């Protein structure tokens, strides 16, 4: 089980990072969300895996480590707040900058203007 779990965490991390390295805000947001899944699972794993041992007193015989669960809860909420902010920020960037590239410059447009510049450049 641990192997599968670790593999999944690694996979989510890899996909999340790949997405955050993309150039469009939406992909980056997707990536950050994905990464936060990975992070939460990872942090959760720091208490080790346990089956049928929810930390409700009296409901199980053995208990999982409750602390990482609480930490992950906090992390989920904070992650949610951050995702919400970055989503709206992406919209704002589109509104202000006219495109959805993370650098605020559409590479195509930049390439076009670069060729123009080079012709008229004096400096």
């Amino acid at each position, binding site marked *: 089980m641990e192997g599968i779990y670790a593999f999944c965490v690694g996979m989510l991390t890899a996909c999340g990072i790949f997405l955050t390295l993309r150039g469009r805000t939406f992909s980056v947001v997707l990536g950050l969300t994905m990464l936060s899944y990975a992070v939460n699972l990872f942090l959760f794993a720091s208490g080790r895996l346990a*089956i*049928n041992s*929810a930390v*409700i007193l009296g*409901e*199980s015989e053995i208990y999982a480590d409750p602390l990482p669960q609480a930490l992950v809860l906090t992390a989920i909420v904070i992650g949610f707040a951050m995702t919400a902010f970055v989503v709206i920020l992406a919209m704002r960037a589109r509104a202000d900058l006219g495109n959805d590239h993370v650098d605020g410059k559409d590479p195509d447009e930049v390439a076009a203007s670069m060729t123009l510049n080079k012709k008229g450049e004096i400096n």
Partner: protein
Amino acid sequence: MLDIAIQIVGLILCVSLILTLYRLLVGPKLPDRILALDTMFIHGIALILLYGIAIENAIYFEAALLIAMLGFVSTSALCKYLLRGDIIE
């Protein structure tokens, strides 16, 4: 006997989930995918309930309830998006 039933249903759910995933990936159109996702949510409910039965514990009931409620919100939001773009207009 119940154990066997649980195992059978577990197997069924796995097959079902894979079939749903197949539809979700293949599409061909977005409504197909949304339908598949919606079905997946319901399978999730079944999975959780089955797990509850298997581990003889009812503490996951709320999770199932929540999937039922929130899955619907999700599906309707997705469809609304396809219809109108703006889901909260």
